[in-house]
Structure formats: structure tokens, C-alpha cells
């Protein structure tokens, strides 16, 4: 029982991180109807910026405080992501207003390759470290209840808490603020939103900025866990089954979807994996998402689209 709970908790915490990555997809899709293939590259780009600035800033300013260097690096990386958002809006999206969804999708694919290439050129392709003081050693709880206790990974716990907080803030932003409502209006219909005076270009800039910040937080968390390197861009793949399952337009869907995928893949790897050769967690997540799609094609919380003909 103890081991099952450990796996379950591990899955929930991993799932919370997947939710954070999935949120990047959901945000941009909600505001522009674009499935942003560049989300993984944005995570990598943001993490590279954070890692490199946290090394460069102390050298430039002669700082000795690691905490202050990290704060400044985070702000600088945030500024870089805002610049990316501005460039994406000016150079790509502005020219593709009212184009087919497939055109926008291909444009984001191009953005992904450009970000990965420029990221490597600007910041290098070595492995870089982000040290924001995340605890690495595990902690044991309930030792008197379960034989050997329950092992909790403190780093995952802190990361999942940060992710949960960010998800909650973004949910509030979308539901309770004027800008959030404008973002949702743009997602529903570009032309209708423009006709009532919502500035489309500004909204797109804002949402890419928000997605950039989400990518930065995801990049810091995953970069701290894995080291900052090219593989971070594959982290986005962990978010794909989450959005398939949770629905592309739903923030609660991203959260619940993340948790279901996290728990599902860990339990499947541990209990089903040994029976069929192991190494199944990645494809099992997609399998799980597809099963949900059979029952609810729009995802768990996605909007049901009815076109009248």
C-alpha cells in the first residue's frame, strides 16, 4: 500500500508539472485558436536565457549574492521572452490574421525551429545549471504507518506547489479580469472581437507574453531538475496528451488532465510495465488520452463545437 501511495503521489506531482507545460498550449489556443508547436522551444529558450543570465549578471555587475543574481536573471529572461512575444506578433502573427488554422500551426512550427537554432547560437549548446535552491534530498513521512515510510521528493513537491500557484493565478486572470475576458473573446472569433473594439494585436502580444512567462517558470523548474539542455524542448511532449485529454480550451482541463496523465503513466509503468517489457509510460500517456477522446472527442473540459450547416 505504501508503495502504491508513493507512486500515486509521485504521479500527482509529475502531473502538476505537466499541467504547467500544457497551460502554455491552452493559453495561446484560447487567445488565438493557434496550437502553438513552439511551446517546447519557448521552454528551452527561456531556460537557456535564465541559466546564462544567472552566470553572466554576477560577472557583469560583480554580484556575490546568488539569490539576487537569480532574481535579476529571472527578470532579464522574462524581458527576453517579452521580446520574443513582440517579435512573434510583429513578424509572424500580424501577417496571418484570419488565415486558416493550419497556416498558423505551421508558422508556430517554424518559430520552434528558429527559437531552438537561435537559442543554441546565442546561449550555446552545452549543459547549463539553474540553481534556485531547490531541495534535492528526499524526505520520509508516515514511517510508523507504512513499512519503510513514504518517500516524498522535496524538489517535486516544491515544483508542484509553484506550478499549482501559477495555474491558480492564471485561472483567475482569465476568469476575473477584463484582459482575460478579452482574450477569451478573441479566441472565440477574431473578426467579432475586432468589430467590438478589442485590439487583436495587443491581445496576441499579451498572451504570448503570458505564455512566455509560463515557459520561463516551466523552464526554471525543469531546468533545475534536469539541467538546461536541448532535451528540455521535448518536455513539451509531456504536455500534449494532457491537452488532448483535458481539452485545448480549458485551464481546469489542463490541471485535471495533467494529474490524470501523471498518475496514469506512473502507475502503468510500475504495475503494467514489467508485464509487457517496460518503458511504456510515454506512449501509455497518449493511449490514455485517446481512450478519453473516444468517450469525449472535445476532451474532458473542452468546448463542444456545433457548426450549423
Amino acid at each position, binding site marked *: 500500500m505504501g*508503495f502504491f501511495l*508513493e*507512486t500515486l503521489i*509521485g*504521479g500527482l506531482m*509529475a502531473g502538476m508539472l505537466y499541467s504547467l507545460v500544457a497551460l502554455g498550449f491552452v493559453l495561446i489556443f484560447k487567445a488565438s485558436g493557434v496550437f502553438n508547436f513552439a511551446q517546447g522551444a519557448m521552454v528551452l529558450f527561456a531556460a537557456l536565457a535564465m541559466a546564462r543570465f544567472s552566470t553572466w549578471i554576477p560577472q557583469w555587475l560583480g554580484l556575490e549574492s546568488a539569490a539576487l543574481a537569480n532574481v535579476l536573471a529571472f527578470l532579464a529572461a522574462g524581458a527576453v521572452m517579452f521580446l520574443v512575444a513582440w517579435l512573434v506578433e510583429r513578424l509572424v502573427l500580424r501577417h496571418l490574421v484570419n488565415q486558416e488554422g493550419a497556416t498558423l500551426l505551421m508558422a508556430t512550427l517554424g518559430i520552434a525551429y528558429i527559437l531552438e537554432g537561435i537559442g*543554441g547560437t546565442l546561449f550555446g*549548446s*552545452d*549543459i547549463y*545549471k539553474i540553481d534556485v535552491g531547490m531541495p*534535492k*534530498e*528526499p524526505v520520509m513521512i508516515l514511517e510508523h504507518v507504512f513499512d519503510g515510510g513514504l*518517500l516524498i*521528493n*522535496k*524538489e*517535486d513537491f516544491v515544483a508542484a506547489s509553484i506550478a499549482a500557484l501559477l495555474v491558480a493565478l492564471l485561472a483567475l486572470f482569465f476568469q476575473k479580469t477584463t484582459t482575460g475576458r478579452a482574450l477569451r473573446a478573441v479566441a472565440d472569433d477574431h473578426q467579432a472581437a475586432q468589430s467590438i473594439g478589442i485590439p487583436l494585436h495587443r491581445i496576441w502580444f499579451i498572451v504570448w507574453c503570458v505564455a512566455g512567462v509560463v515557459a520561463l517558470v516551466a523552464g526554471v523548474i*525543469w531546468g533545475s*531538475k*534536469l*539541467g538546461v*539542455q*536541448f*532535451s*528540455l524542448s*521535448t*518536455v513539451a511532449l*509531456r504536455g500534449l496528451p494532457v491537452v488532448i485529454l483535458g481539452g485545448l480550451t480549458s485551464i481546469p482541463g489542463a490541471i485535471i488532465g495533467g494529474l490524470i496523465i501523471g498518475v496514469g*503513466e*506512473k502507475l502503468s*509503468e*510500475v504495475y503494467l*510495465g*514489467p508485464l509487457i*517489457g*517496460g*518503458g511504456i*509510460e*510515454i*506512449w501509455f500517456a497518449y493511449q490514455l488520452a485517446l481512450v478519453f477522446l473516444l468517450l469525449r472527442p472535445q476532451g474532458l473540459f473542452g468546448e463542444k463545437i456545433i457548426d450549423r450547416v
Partner: protein
Amino acid sequence: MKSIKLAVAGAAIASLLSTPNVIAQAKEQFFPVLVYRTGAYAPNGSQWANGYVDYLKLVNAKGGINGVKISFEECETAYATDRGVECYERLKGKNGGATLFQPLSTGVTFALTEKAPVDKIPLITAGYGRSESQNGAVFTWNFPLLGTYWVGAEVAIQHIAKKEGGVAKLKGRKIALVYHDSPYGKEPIPVLQELARNHGFELQLLPVAHPGVEQKATWLQVRQQKPDYVLLWGWGVMNSTALREAQSTGYPREKMIGIWWAGAEPDVKDVAEGAKGYNALTLQHGAEPNAKVVKDLRELVYAKGQGTGPKEDVGQVLYMRGLISAMLGVEGVRKAQERYGKGKVMSGEQVRWGLENLSLDQKTLDGMGFAGVMRPVQTSCLDHMGSSWVRVHTWSGSKWEFTSDWYQADEKVLRPMVMLASSKYAEEKKLKPRTPEECKK
């Protein structure tokens, strides 16, 4: 008539333009270099590539191979098999023909194993590739020089047995293999299964999907099963992630032994203290910043601003692996020149003869600047591996330090397996193995 004149003139101009180029090429030995400086495995692939290319530059700086300068061209594979094959096809006939290929990927090696005999180009796979390709009678163009994954697996168990106080003490022990779920990661499994049967230990197989950034479920299983030792067969980000997960599940790093592709600086430097005590096999060498050959490189290549990568990487583990891989190829050419003419450019077929007759004794190696780095290598037509010397080094928290004496793989265990697997391959492909008599030709 006008078009014929134009065609003749065009051909004449083309021949005039191309002739000096052909002459220039004829004096150069062309080494295609398959690299991965991008993609998930770039941090590891770049270091290997830098060492490889730097050594070729060093040979040129010293006058070439008996006067024959080396030309080289990189092709980016991103560790993808399809791109590796594409690079091979693009470079095999370039600049007078490829001397040899070193794909640095077991997947690409599997794909090229059937192409190399057709094109008559040797494949050097130092420390990777198909383990049964040690048998030169069947795998006539593959050269898994210095060691194979079967060597690594066998030596890892030898090392564990030594730590436990003898082979008999392995009975009832539990050993887990955490491996990259790819041809590379699966290579050691047959040997480990054979040894588990022979010595009575339990083998637990834990695959990790590419690229290995998510291993929580794997390490929860390690925590549940509590193996006495974990063998790590990873590459790139999988290794550092495994060490981080071991730390976060409390598995002792001292009980972990990595293959030589899981024992370099990129695998541990960010985990730092968290990886302290972690062991890895070495393909003879470790980090060798003080080796004579490295000093030569600093003086003759880096001091002139011709170094390929960052100065601080020179002498690190994977850099040395690339450097030694290049050296083995160069020595194959040098040996071939002894038979086919000093100062001449060698063909792939001639280089194969050179690689089959490599005889690098300790005096020669020491003279080349590899004292303390390498032990002798002696290949033959039937043995394409040449040596199986392995040491163990351990991460101190800031650097790799050798912590074992030299091991050699037990041929009594491996030879029958190599013969069986290679015979099966020959049967499948309808190949007639070379006889010792044919080897003498």
C-alpha cells in the same frame, strides 16, 4: 553544331577547373566525420567530435600520415539513424572516397553494417556498435576496437564480484539494469542474462524511453525492488537524470556502475555532490588533461587558435574518446601504408587491412603521447576488437578518479557468445565467413 561546340567547350572548362582539385585531393586522406552537435545528445556528441577533429588537426600539424595530409568534413546526424545514413551516402564518395566511418551511434552502426561491405569502407565503432562484430570472419568491415558492450557488461559483473568478495557471493544478489530503450541500451542484456544464469544473481531490466528525461517510475521500482547494484546504460540527459532520481529516491550512488558512455563530465558535473561515489567503467582512458598528446594539442593546435572546441574541454573523458577514436583510424592508415606504399593515399579496402593488422604496443603508444592513457591494441583478421582493457573511475564530487585496477573481459564467457551470434548473422544474411587462409591474402 553550335550546341556540340558549346558542350565541348563546357567539358574542357569543367576538366580544367576540376583537374587541380583532383590532384589536391589525391594527396589527401579524406576522413568523413559524423557528428551530433545539435539535438538531445549534443552536449556529449560535441565533446567527442571536438576530440576527433582536433586529433586530425594535430596529425596535420605534425606533417600528416607519412606526409599525406588529412582532409575532413563534418556531417550532422543529430543522433538520428536516418540522418546518419544520409550523411554516409553523401560523404562516402567525396574527395576521392571515404577512408572510414565512425558513426558514434549503435543505431547508425546497425544500419551501415550492411552498406559498408558493398562500398568497401571500414566502420570503426570504438566502444559501441554490434558486440558480435568482434568476429572479423563474419563482420569483415566492422571494427569495435577497444571494447564492446558485452565486454562492458562482463567487466561490470567482475567488478561487482570483486567488491562482494568473489563470484560465489553473487548468488542471490539482485542487479538492476537501467537502460536506454534502444539498440544501444539493449546490447548488454544477453551477456547479463548469461552471467545471471551462471552466477545465480537476479537480473532486473528497467528500460527508459528516449531521451530519458522522465525516470520517476523507473526509480520508484528501484526503490521497491532494492537491487544490490544498478548498472546504468544511458546516454546524454538520461545519465544525469538517473543520478538525480537516484539521489531523490535515496539510492546509494556508490552502488551504481555506468557503462563508459555514462561516465563523463556532462553526466555528473551539474549533479556535482549528488553524484559523489558514482562509478563508471572506462574504455581504458578517463579524463586525461595531463597526457602528452593533450599537451601536444595545446601547443600545436590550440596555441595557434585552431582548436575546435572550448579549451577547458580538452582532455575531458568524451574528448579523449573522440581523440583516441581518430587516432585508431589514423594508425589504420599508417599501417596500411607500410604494406601499400608510404606517403600514398589509402583506399577503404587498404585501410581495412591496416585496421586488421594494428599492432600498437606500449612503447609505440607511449611514444605517441598515450602513456598512462592506453594499453596495447593488437587486432587480427579474425579479432576486430584488439583489446578489452577496462578500469573503473569514480566521481569525487568535482572530478573523475580511477578507483580500480585494470580488468580484462573473460573471453571464456564472451567468445562462445560472439561466435554464436555472428554465425547466426552469417546464416541470416547468407554470408560465407572468411577462413584463416583467406585472411592471409
